[in-house]
Each structure stands twice: as structure tokens, then as C-alpha cells.
């Protein structure tokens, strides 16, 4: 019962299969696989089985059921679920038990999904390999010598290893698409404002979005459909009606103009990734798509701008972890100031400290204009580049990452080389546009290769339709 699509699972459940059996099968898969993979930080066996039995009872009684009734879902450990830990992969929150549900979790419950557990991540979502988790090592299920990507590496590994059919991740610069690409699953970052951030531990508030991870495009569309839409508790949540992603998902998309970003196709792009991307593009062309070359002249400034904006926001957001209301408290302190400093210094890992330091620096007097403000101006330039491109094309297609998954320890000694792993994904976050990564092949080592589709703001229905079309063509 594991290893199939959500669509097939829903059909089986409608045909008499129980959610309890489906959840049991996935819990068994977790018990068998997760010691080696390390995707989960918390597995809520009893809670999941209880939810499954409740849904089975509702179904037997003929009560109305939600769109994901009985389907197991995993949740990244920076999203709050009542009664479960929210560690954010950090020692500083190792014992934090959430007293409330994030809005996305409330909506999953309304959809009758079954929450099975919480997944590993880079500490506070700062990283691109899940190696910066202070709590656990997660490996790539495809090959344990390689990282799963990050920061939502636990969620993508859990889906890839058939431990859950669906998982939620979060993306600030590429943290859903990059690990989805490395693990060979579908991962999607919605338009900024499409999904409520209430209950998501903030990292870079103007960039963060929660998004779906699934084995196929259909599964990801169903998960986003369940959690999207306006929420009064998030002031950046858009009023736009959440679109219907399912009805026209498999329809012929009609004539398509596909934009290829020239700046992404130069140096640094791995040959095998380039070849797999070209094959996907050729299939689209053969099916009638027109290819247009687009220029994004600010590509090389995207990662620097991203790190300035994200770390500035992070330095403010992470100020709340001071050992007063929650989080680790140092026993070494003699006064209040020392308590703050010692608690934070003992609780945060090195990458989090680096980013807080950079953020503090670039917000400080004398550096604010040159760094933070100018980074926000670069953002405007990148938004303009997208507008220019979308005046010509329906969708932008690119490799998701310049390479396939890298080995453990390969990039941890050089923070900047780790940052460059997000070079193709980060612009969608800076501009707030939706983007999706889907598998388009594997390299000679068997490591998955992903391609990314990007469309204009609030056009998720079209994005998923085009992704579904591409998925079919690549699979043929």
C-alpha cells in the first residue's frame, strides 16, 4: 500500500480500504527504513492511528469527508502541531512542545489528512543539505553517501523512501525544490501570500512560504489545494481566492511559450544535468511548445541579495529565542544579559550564528543602506526581470540545481559554496512567484535530476497544469 500515488490511495480508500491499514503500512515502512534514512525527528504512531480510526469511523457512518481523507502526511519540524515537538532541527528548541496548530495543520485536519510525524531539517531552515540539523543526520534514500538536500531534506527523504506519500516543507531560498530535486520527488513553492505562515517558525519573513512535496505533480497539487487560501492570522496572506488546482490539472495546456533562462545555462551547470534538462525541453518542443530565450541579467546578484535580506530578517526573527518564555536556558549565567547570551550561544549551531551575525551587521548603522536597502533594490530589479520575461512567455523552465546531490561534508567547510547550491531557485523567492521542481532523469551515478517551472504570481493552476504536462512527456 506504500509507494503508490495519492490518487491511487484515495481510490483504494473509497473502494473499502481502511485508513488504519494505510497508516499502519506507512508506519511499518518508517520502522523498517528510517533507522537508515533518518527523515523523522518525531513519529506519532498512536496519534496517527487514532486519527485514521476516526476517519474510518466517519467514512463508515457516511459523514462528509475532506479531500485528503485518510492520507498520511509528514510535516517539517518548523511547523507547529499541537502536542508534538517543534524543534526546528535546533538544540535550542529540542524540548519545545507546541501548544497550538499552524493554520496549514488546521486545514490538513479539516481535509481529514493523517499527521504521522515531524521531519528533520537544517537548523531553522538555514542550509541546503540538512547537514546543519543539530539533532539528526538524514541521508538521501537514493544513495546514503549523498545528502538529501535541504533545508526540507527530511520531508523529501520521507516521501522518496515511501514512508509517507505527502509532506509539507518550507522554502526561503529553495528549501523545497532543491531537496525535491536531489531526492527525485516533486516539490513546490507557492506564490508568496498563497499559504498562511501562521505557525511556521519565521526565518526570512518576506521570503518564507510553506509548500507541498509528493511523489507526483497530482499529489503536490492536492496537498497545496488543502492548505492554501486566505488566513486572517497572517497579514501577508493574500485575499485572492485559492484556485482550483485539480479540475483542469490533466487537461491539454494548449499552446505554450517556454522561456529558457540563458544565464542559468552557462558555466557551473553539470553536463549530465544539462542533458536531462535538454531532453525534457525537447519533449515539450516536440509536443508543440515554442522555446524563447530569456535574459535575467541580475542572476549573479540574486544570491548576495538573498543572503542580505534573509539574514537581516532572521537576525530579528531569532531574537525571540532568549531562554525566557521557551527554548534552552543556560545554567551558567549570573545575570539576565548573560542568560540571554549563554542560552543563545549554547543553543544555536555555527551556521545559525553566522547568519545572525551577518544580519545584525547589515542592519547596523552605516551598513544598512549599502547592504540591506540595496539588497531590497536588487529585489526590485529581479522582479522587473520576471515581468519582462512573463510578457513574452507562459512559463520559465530551468534545471532546479546546477548539480545532482553532493556528498556529506563536501560543502560544510565553505559557507559560500553551500549558498551557491540555491542559485537557480532563489530568484522565485525574491520575486514571490510560484515555482515547482519535478524529476526529469538521473545521472550516471543514479542520482536524480530535477527541472524547475516558474509562472507569474498567483497562477498556480496553470503552473500545476504545465508541470503535469511535462511530467507526462518526460515519463513517456
Amino acid at each position, binding site marked *: 500500500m506504500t509507494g503508490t500515488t495519492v490518487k491511487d490511495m484515495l481510490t483504494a480508500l473509497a473502494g473499502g480500504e481502511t485508513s488504519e491499514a494505510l497508516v499502519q503500512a506507512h508506519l511499518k515502512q518508517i520502522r523498517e527504513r528510517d533507522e537508515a534514512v533518518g527523515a523523522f525527528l518525531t513519529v506519532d504512531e498512536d496519534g496517527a492511528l487514532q486519527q485514521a480510526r476516526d476517519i474510518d469511523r466517519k467514512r463508515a457512518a457516511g459523514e462528509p469527508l475532506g479531500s485528503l481523507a485518510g492520507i498520511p502526511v509528514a510535516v517539517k519540524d518548523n511547523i507547529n502541531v499541537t502536542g508534538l515537538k517543534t524543534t526546528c532541527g535546533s538544540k535550542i528548541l529540542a524540548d519545545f512542545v507546541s501548544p497550538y496548530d499552524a493554520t496549514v495543520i488546521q486545514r490538513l485536519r479539516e481535509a481529514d489528512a493523517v499527521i504521522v510525524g515531524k521531519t528533520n531539517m537544517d537548523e531553522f531552515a538555514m542550509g541546503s543539505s540538512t547537514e546543519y540539523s543539530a539533532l539528526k543526520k538524514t541521508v538521501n534514500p537514493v544513495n546514503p553517501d549523498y545528502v538529501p538536500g535541504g533545508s526540507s531534506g527530511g520531508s523529501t527523504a520521507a516521501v522518496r523512501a515511501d514512508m509517507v506519500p505527502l509532506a509539507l516543507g518550507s522554502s526561503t531560498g529553495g528549501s523545497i525544490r532543491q531537496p525535491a530535486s536531489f531526492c527525485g520527488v516533486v516539490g513546490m513553492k507557492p506564490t508568496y501570500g498563497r499559504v498562511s505562515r501562521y505557525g511556521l517558525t519565521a526565518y526570512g519573513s518576506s521570503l518564507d512560504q510553506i509548500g507541498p512535496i509528493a511523489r507526483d505533480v497530482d499529489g503536490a497539487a492536492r496537498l497545496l489545494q488543502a492548505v492554501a487560501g486566505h488566513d486572517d492570522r497572517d497579514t501577508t496572506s493574500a485575499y485572492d481566492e485559492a484556485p482550483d488546482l485539480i479540475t483542469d490539472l490533466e487537461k491539454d495546456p494548449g499552446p505554450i511559450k517556454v522561456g529558457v533562462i540563458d544565464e542559468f545555462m552557462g558555466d557551473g551547470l553539470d553536463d549530465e544535468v544539462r542533458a536531462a534538462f535538454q531532453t525534457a525541453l525537447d519533449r515539450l518542443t516536440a509536443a508543440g511548445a515554442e522555446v524563447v530565450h530569456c535574459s535575467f541579467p541580475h542572476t549573479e546578484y540574486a544570491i548576495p541579495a538573498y543572503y542580505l535580506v534573509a539574514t537581516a530578517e532572521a537576525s530579528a526573527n531569532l531574537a525571540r529565542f532568549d531562554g*525566557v518564555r521557551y527554548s534552552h536556558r543556560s545554567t551558567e549565567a549570573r545575570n539576565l544579559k548573560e542568560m540571554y547570551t549563554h542560552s543563545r550561544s549554547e543553543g544555536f549551531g555555527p551556521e545559525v550564528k553566522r547568519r545572525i551575525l551577518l544580519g*545584525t551587521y547589515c542592519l547596523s548603522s552605516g551598513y544598512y543602506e*549599502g547592504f540591506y536597502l540595496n539588497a531590497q533594490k536588487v529585489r526590485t530589479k529581479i522582479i522587473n526581470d520576471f515581468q519582462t520575461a512573463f510578457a513574452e512567455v507562459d512559463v520559465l523552465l530551468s534545471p532546479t540545481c546546477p548539480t545532482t546531490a553532493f556528498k556529506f561534508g563536501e560543502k560544510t567547510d565553505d559557507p559560500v559554496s553551500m549558498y551557491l547550491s540555491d542559485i537557480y531557485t532563489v530568484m522565485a523567492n525574491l520575486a514571490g512567484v510560484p515555482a515547482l521542481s519535478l524529476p526529469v532523469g538521473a545521472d550516471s551515478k543514479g542520482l536524480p535530476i530535477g527541472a524547475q517551472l516558474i509562472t507569474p504570481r498567483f497562477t498556480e493552476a496553470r503552473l500545476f497544469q504545465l508541470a503535469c504536462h511535462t511530467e507526462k512527456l518526460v515519463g513517456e
Partner: protein
Amino acid sequence: MNIDRQTVEHYAKLANLAFSKEETERMTHDFGNILNYVAKISELDLSDVEATTHVFENRPLVRPDETAEGIGAKAALANAPDTEAGHFLVPKMIKVR
């Protein structure tokens, strides 16, 4: 851009962080590299460009002025390292002469 130990220590203090000697060495090295990298944006002429603070203009969010249930004091205090009589407890912060 040259970053010295004193600069790292100054900003660490502002951020309520403290580093060991080894950490400061490592941080000084990494921080210099990262700053040199992000300083790349200074190559651009941005004098006439508006800064983006929000990627889209949302309508102001208003709601009826009605009370709603919170999580309650017990749940709010449940994760606190130290509490007393329904309050968060912290080390003494006022000096008595």
C-alpha cells in the same frame, strides 16, 4: 573587506552571542568571505531603484473587534524554563546598592 576579531566580537555582542576563542577565529574568517561575496551588489547602480519591502500589495487586514479564545496561561507557560505563580521567572536584573 577586512574583518577583524574586534568587529566580530562587537556584532556578536549586539546579537546576544558569545564565541570561544576558536569560534571567533573561524567566524572572523567565514564572515570576511561572506561579506566579500555579498558586497557584489555594490557593483550595481541602484540610485534610481525603489526598494521592495513587500512582493505584493495586500489590502489592509481588518477584522471585527471581537475577543477570541487564546491558548491560556497554563499552555503559554508550559515550555518556559522557569516559572513562578503564573509568571515567567528570569535571573535578577535590577542591581540593589
